[in-house]
């Protein structure tokens, strides 16, 4: 969807302010939100792509004024209600009306293994690639109302297949219907001048990871 989360190329968002601290949570509640998200994902009621789509649906004006962990909190609340783990009445009152139907909870002893084994999106299936390394491709100029990993700034642009990453779950469909739609994922190189015009450096480029369904031959 063409909302505010898709920020690549925007102006007006200020300078990048460096921060040389290794401190990851600046407030206690930020760590709790991060951990709540991981502990709730354990129930497998949603996948990472559904999580991203939930965040993207935060109303744009609210999104811009929220911090990273406020956005994460909104996302978690949305997922909990949409996937039936909590009702919106429980969320607003804070009072449970009964235990959720789940088979267990993430245990402290299981955290270390989860940290090393997050996400498996590569699929071991023999599927023919539509493109080969070195092929010239055109990204689709499509504007789906649902989730997509093809950013606006890179739509309708010519690029070159830099590498074939293998077969992966297709995030765009996995987010909407859990349809994994396995297909090849490629590193696609697009020249900076193709994306941003002649004022961009002719040496520079942006590499994006895009799926067969995002590309057509040139």
């Amino acid at each position, binding site marked *: 969807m063409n909302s505010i989360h898709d920020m690549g190329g925007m102006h007006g968002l200020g300078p990048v302010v460096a921060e040389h601290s290794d401190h990851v949570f*600046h407030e206690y509640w930020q760590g709790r939100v*991060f951990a709540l998200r991981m502990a709730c994902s354990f129930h497998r009621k949603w996948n990472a792509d559904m999580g991203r789509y939930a965040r993207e649906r935060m109303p744009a004006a609210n999104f811009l004024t929220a911090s990273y962990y406020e956005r994460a909190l909104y996302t978690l609340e949305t997922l909990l209600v949409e996937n039936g783990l909590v009702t919106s009445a429980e969320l607003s009152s804070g009072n449970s009306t009964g235990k959720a139907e789940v088979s267990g909870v993430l245990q402290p002893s299981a955290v270390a293994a989860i940290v090393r084994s997050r996400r498996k999106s590569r699929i071991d299936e023999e599927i023919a690639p539509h493109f080969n390394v070195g092929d010239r491709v055109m990204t689709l100029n499509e504007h789906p109302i649902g989730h997509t990993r093809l950013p606006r700034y890179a739509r309708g642009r010519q690029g070159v297949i830099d590498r074939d990453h293998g077969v992966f779950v297709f995030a765009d469909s996995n987010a909407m219907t859990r349809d994994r739609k396995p297909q090849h994922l490629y590193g696609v190189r697009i020249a900076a001048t193709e994306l941003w015009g002649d004022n961009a450096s002719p040496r520079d*480029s942006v590499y994006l990871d895009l799926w067969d369904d995002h590309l057509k031959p040139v």
Partner: protein
Amino acid sequence: MSDHHHEDDHDHHHNSPLSGTALRVKALESLLVDKGLIDSKTLDEIVDTYEYRVGPRNGAQIVARAWVDPAYKMRLLANATAAIAEFGFIERWAEDMVAIENTPTIRNMVVCTLCSCYPWPVLGLPPAWYKSDAYRARSVIDPRGVLKELGDDVPESVEVRVWDSTAELRYLVLPERPSGTEGWTEEQLAAIVTRDSMIGVARIELPNVTS
């Protein structure tokens, strides 16, 4: 929706009353415990893991190994997931990693314009600036300007490659080994590898160069 919009990752309000957001999080945690969905001790464990156990020191060990061991470097650049699995930070079948090498003529920098994807197992959680709207928006359109703001002026003769993490692949930049480190041990080298150099926004400078 939050009614507390003035807080960001840079704020430090010690000893102040709980903000609206902090109260909302506390209420949510308590509700989820009551619903039988989480164990608060697990939350402590997750926070502790990402605060103290997983971080850029993991990535620094990988970089140092690649600097001293040409065969390891080849494995890392050819199949980063498997090469990183040798250290045990990540399972061989888990999150897919790609390592990209800086050279005197090529600079790589990593961003996620659509969210804030970042290689957690090797770098820990990202710094606030990496997740900032400004970095996400500008890295792709003005990488040289962003690098300059972060203190790194890249000559026009050097090619800049920006990697937008749009899929479940995570990027680790293999920074250039600074001159003056010939003969250093892997441990000494790991100690000078910075988080920002592995995101690709900084070169590695030697501390207290005397020669």
